[in-house]
């Protein structure tokens, strides 16, 4: 039994974190006083799985902690305890502590013991509160205790009948019996009536059943705990042994059909099997430290994704089609003559269609609903509104919109930042709102939707809106704009994306720290997206984020410089023009610029930047100027020719090489050769640093 448990760690952690999310959502939905039984049940189940899993993998602190939470939840579930706001809050905090503990366990660190301890105490406090505050509900189901609630049992009689397959599930009845025996003095009787004839004997099946008499008044729950893992793989009944003449056999007969214990064979069987089991147990114990060591590596190494089974089925179907097409083409190829050229064309068209469908389906696998990212916001709003003393309602729509998993991962932090901003700066205090004639409770609306090839995420609030004058004053103060500049609202709002820009009086504990808006914009640009702001003074503001659906494919414009081919992401291209002499200006010390609709834009000669020697176009009016935009700045890329637009699959250059400035990745063209994809913001930085003709003008277009 030398299974490397570390291989399951990753799954365990993923499931546990999912469980924590379920618990969190459930707790937030829970109405103190009138909790939904199903809701409590699902929270309980999540806690239970985490406890079971962490116990199995040896994270005892996690399982101990969860156990206390579970006890509390169990009482709520059985209606023995009222759901109070206090208890829910403590449970919510416990979820946080538990998450920290799990993260620590995953990364091989240790959780903050002080925090764990105090939260542990807090839970116990709530548990102890029980008698003082709430009446036990009359419906509490207590199956066996109900038979004689007044009499303390002196011990327990346990009938344990494993199903034949019990040992194949990795369980061992002996371990259970030994564990029971550790609770106190115990007699065991084994029933061997189920044993088949020797020739029919399957060594992996369990044919025995037991009747155990535990002569110790232990807690019933302790016994249940021991059977926790085998519940579904055995019949077992626990009957309290009463001091005198309690009719145990009645209850026993109800619980287990036909118990026929045979006393005479117990001892020999037990003692023979016990020894090897002991050795096995030792082996397991020795394994423990190794497991712990292996854990962080496994967890850090990879990430996985859960895929809807329908998507997989769809894929399998499509691969089936592809195989059929392939064999059809194969047969055609074996005896081909020109008369069959039509069929060949048909087959190739089919192949193309199937390949495209397959590609789309494979891309679908990476798509997950954005609710993965949205799910944290109810908690955030709940906590923050309490902290800020504001009344805020969060509305979400379009949570099922699907986005690439990488997008989900990277959009999380910027979204948190934006929502925090909205709560902190946008929504006013209840008094201010009433004074402004608005409802006391502010609303933050989070929506996601598909528009064209993009996903659009909006964070809209009905707060005070962006303070246009304050932003402008600050920008003038910092020399970002001149007082006499006539700026549109949009230009003013864009100023908040400048690095280090923060209207000082707005900084607070909530949103004064962490990433700034410039980082938010950079993150979104890195994903190939864009961000814009709408705002009406006094009415509210909206932040609109546009992101590509997937990071694995991009629409590109193929350009040629000399004999080399590059791809420019289509989203970055404003337009492509042929320069006229009249548009050109050479400003001394500022390099080459051109005028496009009143804007002076710098020209980047790509062949110089990339050191391409065999370029054709010498004069700027010979070639093509691709006007591109990145991080709010524009420039013109001087290239030889435009070749065409196509969708390209992005391949990593860093996987085998390293990051190259100005290049975001590579792709494989139709002829099998590699073309590099330009990273426009990176390219502008490169041009700025490389000096020369393409240099300095970039600085002034900021």
């Amino acid at each position, binding site marked *: 039994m030398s299974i490397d448990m570390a291989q399951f760690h990753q799954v365990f952690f993923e499931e546990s974190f999912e469980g924590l999310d379920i618990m969190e959502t459930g707790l937030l939905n829970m109405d103190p006083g009138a909790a939904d039984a199903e809701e409590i049940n699902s929270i309980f189940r999540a806690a239970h799985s985490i406890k079971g899993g962490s116990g199995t993998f040896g994270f005892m602190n996690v399982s101990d902690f969860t156990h206390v939470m579970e006890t509390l939840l169990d009482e709520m579930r059985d209606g023995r305890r009222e759901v109070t706001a206090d208890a829910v809050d403590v449970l919510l905090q416990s979820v946080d502590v538990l998450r920290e503990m799990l993260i620590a366990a995953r990364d091989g660190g240790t959780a903050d013991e002080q925090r764990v301890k105090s939260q542990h105490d807090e839970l116990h406090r709530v548990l102890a509160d029980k008698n003082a505050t709430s009446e036990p509900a009359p419906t509490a189901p207590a199956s066996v205790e109900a038979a004689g609630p007044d009499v303390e049992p002196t011990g327990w009689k346990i009938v344990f009948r494993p199903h034949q397959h019990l040992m194949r599930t990795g369980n061992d009845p002996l371990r259970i019996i030994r564990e029971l025996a550790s609770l106190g003095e115990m007699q065991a009787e084994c029933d061997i009536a189920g044993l088949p004839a020797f020739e029919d004997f399957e060594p992996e099946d369990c044919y025995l059943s037991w009747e155990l008499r535990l002569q110790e008044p232990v807690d019933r729950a302790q016994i249940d705990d021991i059977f926790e893992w085998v519940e579904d793989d055995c019949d077992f009944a626990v009957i309290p042994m009463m001091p005198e003449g309690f009719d145990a056999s009645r209850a026993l007969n109800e619980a287990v059909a036909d118990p026929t214990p045979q006393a005479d064979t117990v001892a020999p069987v037990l003692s023979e099997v016990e020894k090897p089991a002991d050795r096995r147990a030792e082996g397991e114990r020795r394994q423990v430290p190794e497991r712990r060591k292996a854990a962080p590596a496994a967890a850090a190494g990879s990430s996985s994704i859960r895929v809807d089974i329908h998507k997989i089925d769809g894929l399998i179907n499509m691969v089936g089609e592809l195989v059929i097409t392939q064999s059809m083409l194969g047969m055609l190829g074996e005896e081909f003559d020109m008369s069959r050229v039509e069929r060949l064309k048909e087959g190739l068209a089919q192949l193309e269609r199937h390949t495209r469908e397959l590609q789309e389906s494979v891309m679908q696998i990476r798509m997950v609903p954005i609710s993965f990212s949205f799910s944290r916001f109810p908690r955030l709003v709940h906590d923050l509104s309490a902290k800020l003393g504001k009344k805020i309602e969060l509305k979400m729509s379009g949570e099922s919109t699907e986005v690439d998993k990488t997008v989900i991962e990277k959009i999380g932090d910027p979204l948190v930042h934006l929502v925090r901003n909205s709560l902190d700066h946008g929504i006013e205090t209840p008094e201010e709102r009433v004074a402004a004639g608005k409802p006391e409770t502010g609303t933050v609306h989070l929506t996601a939707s598909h528009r064209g090839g993009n996903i659009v995420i909006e964070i809209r609030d009905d707060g005070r809106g962006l303070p246009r004058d304050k932003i402008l004053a600050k920008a003038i103060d910092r020399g970002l704009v001149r007082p006499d500049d006539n700026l549109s609202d949009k230009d003013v709002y864009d100023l908040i994306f400048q690095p280090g820009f923060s209207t000082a009086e707005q900084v607070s504990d909530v949103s004064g720290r962490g990433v700034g808006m410039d980082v938010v914009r950079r993150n979104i640009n890195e994903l190939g997206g864009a961000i814009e702001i709408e705002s009406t003074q006094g009415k509210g503001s909206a932040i609109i984020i546009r992101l590509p659906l997937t990071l694995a494919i991009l629409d590109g414009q193929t350009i040629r410089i000399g004999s*080399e081919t590059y791809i420019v992401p289509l989203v970055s291209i404003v337009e492509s023009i042929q320069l006229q002499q009249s548009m050109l200006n050479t400003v001394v010390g500022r390099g080459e610029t051109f005028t496009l609709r009143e804007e002076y834009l710098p020209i980047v000669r790509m062949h110089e*930047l*990339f*050191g*391409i020697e065999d370029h054709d176009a010498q004069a700027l009016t010979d070639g093509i100027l691709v006007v591109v935009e990145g991080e709010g700045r524009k420039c013109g890329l001087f290239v030889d020719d435009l070749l065409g637009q196509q969708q390209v699959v992005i*391949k*990593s*250059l860093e*996987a*085998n*090489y*390293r990051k*190259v*400035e*100005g*290049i975001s990745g*590579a792709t*494989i063209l139709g002829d*099998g*050769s*590699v*073309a*590099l994809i330009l990273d426009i913001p990176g390219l502008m930085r*490169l041009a700025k640093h490389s000096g020369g003709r393409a240099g300095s003008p970039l600085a002034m277009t900021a």
Partner: protein
Amino acid sequence: MNQNALVIDDAQQGDVSGTQYLTCTLAREQYGVGILQVREIRGWEQVTRIPNSPAYVKGVINLRGTIVPILDLRLRFGLPTEPYGKETVVIVVRSSDREGDERSIGLVVDAVSDVIVARDEDIIGTPEFGANVPTENISGLVSEKGEMVMLLDICSLMDFAIDES
């Protein structure tokens, strides 16, 4: 792939207890690469140049869907260059880099020569060389039929970041 590697490994165990190396020539010197690191040997083909890269990085190729950089070992080691000919080959090797990530790179060499077997105790450490032999990229030396074979340290060849041009 993994299974293949295992098979080779087993074969070696049964062999005269040693490690197999693929040898290649470079400016009349013999170099060796651990055979388990060799992914494939290809003829020289046109590569896609990467702008602003060191001269010895010839560019990248498409190796069945992955982008693999191609290094010219002559340029890497500062040896005199020669035009690529019919015998010029690219040895695609795979190894883990210093961070432990598996990477593949292609090495341009003059020609592939042989497969030799060397026991670990026959490999001697790298002495201080003269000017043009890159000691940091050599993991050891082994003598084969009176000729010296320098064993390449693939891992160190993957340090692209250090050799910024």
